């Protein structure tokens, strides 16, 4: 039923990191052979945050193995040595031994202290903003997708977070509906994305923060780790850690119309704050101006893209929910689709971003993600009443050809 992604994470396991491999050595080798990738492994750190956690985990792991060995050996030894034999006399009725009691109280207590001290150090070390010039991203959890807003860069994107390598990151986490949890295991531990509580005027709302510095470029997988309803399992994300140069280019591409197959009307670019404008502007003018500046290329493809753009902005009014920088589409209900063509996955990381998958998604999102707010074309589903909201999103009523055009338009945004 689902369209399977064949996308590869691009993150190669580092060879020869003995600590990471130690826990499951035997079972792993036995069960999986070599070369299996675990794109959401918690024991394969690629950031300072993940490394602190992993170091702690490894040391605790060995302590617990020590305790387990002591208990199991003592237990087995006792059971073998003192198993009942037919001619057993009545065993000596020993009721206790103070020295032993003290010993097995103090021994574990010392181990506990040995674990607790580095733990508490790590607690403090990982919960403060990092030195340097952190890049701030405001993460907003939605049922069932992720919104990423870069306040300094003025960029808003969805489901695929771009970060420059080796630069500290401060993620500000807030939810608009239920509790989610931001978790990209290779880059560190999770942190709950709590609904933002309303506060009195003059007070600041409280957010959770997550601080880390990714230290290796790659495309990392993550997903929501707090049960958030029907499609909780389909709320994934990607984090694209790139070089500083690539990152800057990506940000520039956000505003630079030259990269887009059909550039938007410069007049509606909201500059540093694309979130500000949500009103749907005069559509006909824009389409015309967009058409006027169309780049040269394959004429049929261009036509398709142009048709798709027209449908997106006008007929299907996708802009009521979605935003595309440089167009009249400025909705902030659904994911921002600017530079959509650059995304590797769609629908919050559950499918590879191909024309076929995208078309299937547009036709019937409910099929892939039950409980989603986005309406389908109406082929096989009713309009959905969004839970807790009085608004209807009517079916778009597009036919297959129109869907193909919209897909082509969206994929051209790169």
């Amino acid at each position: 039923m689902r369209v399977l992604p064949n996308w590869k994470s691009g993150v190669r396991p580092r060879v020869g990191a003995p600590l990471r491999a130690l826990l499951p050595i035997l079972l792993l080798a036995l069960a999986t052979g070599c070369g299996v990738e675990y794109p959401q492994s918690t024991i394969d750190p690629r950031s300072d945050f993940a490394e602190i956690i992993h170091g702690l985990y490894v040391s605790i792991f060995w302590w617990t193995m020590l305790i387990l060995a002591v208990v199991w050996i003592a237990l087995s030894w006792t059971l073998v040595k003192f198993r009942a034999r037919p001619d057993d006399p009545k065993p000596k009725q020993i009721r206790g031994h103070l020295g032993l009691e003290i010993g097995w109280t103090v021994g574990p207590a010392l181990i506990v202290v040995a674990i607790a001290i580095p733990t508490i150090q790590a607690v403090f070390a990982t919960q403060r903003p990092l030195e340097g010039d952190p890049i701030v991203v405001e993460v907003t959890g939605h049922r069932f997708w992720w919104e990423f807003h870069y306040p300094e860069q003025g960029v808003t994107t969805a489901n695929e977070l771009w970060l420059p390598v080796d630069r500290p990151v401060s993620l500000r986490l807030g939810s608009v509906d239920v509790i989610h949890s931001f978790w990209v295991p290779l880059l560190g531990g999770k942190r709950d994305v709590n609904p933002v509580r309303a506060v009195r005027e003059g007070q600041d709302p409280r957010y959770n923060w997550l601080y880390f510095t990714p230290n290796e470029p790659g495309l990392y997988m993550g997903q929501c780790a707090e049960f958030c309803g029907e499609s909780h399992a389909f709320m994934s994300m990607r984090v694209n850690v790139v070089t500083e140069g690539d990152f800057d280019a990506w940000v520039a591409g956000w505003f630079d119309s030259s990269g887009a197959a059909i550039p938007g009307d410069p007049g509606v670019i909201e500059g540093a704050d694309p979130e500000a404008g949500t009103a749907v502007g005069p559509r006909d003018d824009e389409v015309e101006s967009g058409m006027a500046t169309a780049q040269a290329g394959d004429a049929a493809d261009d036509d398709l893209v142009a048709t798709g753009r027209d449908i997106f902005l006008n007929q299907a009014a996708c802009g009521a929910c979605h935003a595309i920088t440089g167009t009249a589409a400025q909705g902030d209900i659904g994911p921002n689709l600017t530079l959509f063509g650059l995304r590797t996955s769609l629908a919050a990381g559950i499918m590879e971003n191909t024309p076929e998958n995208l078309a299937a998604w547009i036709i019937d999102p409910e099929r892939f993600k039950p409980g989603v707010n986005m309406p389908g074309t109406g082929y096989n589903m009713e309009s959905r009443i969004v839970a807790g909201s009085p608004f209807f999103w009517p079916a778009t009523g597009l036919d297959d050809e129109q869907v193909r055009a919209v897909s082509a338009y969206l994929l051209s945004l790169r």
Partner: protein
Amino acid sequence: MSTATIDQAHAGHSTHDEPTGLWSWITTVDHKRIAIMYFITATFFFFVGGVEALIIRMQLWNPEQSLISPELYNQLFTMHGTTMVFLVAMPMAVAFFNYVVPLQIGARDVAFPRLNALSYWIFLFGGIYINLGWFIGQAPHASWVGYSTLTSSAYSPGLNTDFWFIGLSIIGIASIAGGVNFITTIVNMRAPGMKMMRMPLFTWMTFVTSFLLITAIPVIAVALIFLGFDRTFGSVFFEPAMGGDPVLWQHLFWIFGHPEVYILILPAFGVISDVIPTFSRKPLFGYPIVVYAGILIGFIGWGVWSHHMFTVGLGPIADSFFVAATMIIAIPTGVKIFNWIATMWGGSVQFTTAMLFSVGLLAVFTVGGLSGIMHASAPVNLQQHDSYFVVAHFHYVIVGGAMMGLWAGLYYWFPKVTGKFLDETLGKWHFWTTMVGFNLTFFPMHFSGLFGMPRRIYTYSAELNVDLYNQLSTVGAFIFGISALIMAWNIYRSARRGAPAGPNPWNAATLEWSIPSPPHHYNFPEIPVVRSREPLWNAGEREEVLAVTMPDPAEEPVMPVPSYWPILLAFAITLAWALVMTGIWWVIVLGIVPVFFCVLMWAFEPAFPEGH
């Protein structure tokens, strides 16, 4: 105390035991019958929760599979958790409290026999009620922890969550009543000479657990009331848009929820603390230490709730406090394990099925305890929380701890309850299939968790490469399911045709073994005097005790009269709570009327035959 003579035993008095028949069970106030009903009901729900688990495991067999719908999946895992905690592990422990505690302390019944019956019927009706949603396709679906705001009317608009919060509130009443009952029983109704520090460990752990019940349940009761008001009457406790705090729910839930973990595990610790000495033929090593460790676990258990909330963002100071408290609680738990091993050391260890389950508990519970230490470390917790690693951990603790202990208790006390042994061959099959199935189910979950599989997901991406671990788990789950069938068959068969067991088939030391199996409905013809922790192991004391406990009495003790008001009151309470679902205030108020009526009738009905 009075000294019964052997003459009395031969006085020719026939013991007219309780009448039989359905009505006699419905109106019974006998703690032993109530215990049996608790056990059977809990075992029934164990199979219900087990089938739910098996469907979950089938859905997770392959990545990106869609055997069932996500909504049904969510209902299944929600009800699996709710059922196993509230309708299986807790009531099964209560079944043992009921049967064993009065016998161990030399009492004829619990302090409040009718209240005891009420607890059972409320539990039964609440358990049925919370499952009613299945019949209209709206079973609870917001997970067993019911985190706000997922339970609000906005995100759970159907009746699903109504069944959940109302059902749990009903069951909570039963738990508080049970706690009050057992505290009173243990404090007030011990046989002469049965000092606190002579009580069998199972009674001790019942005592500690009862305190946890009466203190923890009110907290969740309040949380459920808040949730009910939010859903039904428009209050804003958990409404962020109005300044409400969803995290408050988590605090309240886990302030209850962590003591709840000890409510589940301490009874099992109590069982094996009685079983291990019996089958090692040695008294419990370090008795006072084991008692104090249990009390300490109960106390510290109150200060660790936020270790379930390390990802919530409480700040480093709160995190550090709860790290420290959580790690401290590992120490008394470890002490208990070492004391159990020391009890066996130097003994003559007989591997009966009860003993196998006790030893099995020591072996696998330790694994769960140690993985618990791992995520007690807050930073590590950030990687493991809400992943399958945690699922592995708490199943090792609750199944490998609580359930293993209770099954040990089943094999240990079954001869007392029925006068027949559970079949030992089938018992060993039960044990080994349990060990294989259980470990095969839950050990691979450590790996699926470490490799990033979150819990409560309907399906997982093929890219995670965790399908092998999931398939192992699924195979294990079915083996585990077979072990449960073996257990059920063993119980059924042995209850009918088991080998007869005498009063003290295991040569155990405590008072419950001083009376016939099964016991008379009045338990003790005369209350024995106790002079040590192991009355039946000490020459002299043993004869004295048996002299009063074994013979038929000259005159049968007067016992509480049966009553149908417990079941009627339980029904009225369930009905009153159910009417909250209507959301109409006058219907809700009207619903209280039958409750009030039943309370009155209960109050005016004499608990004992007239003239006594």
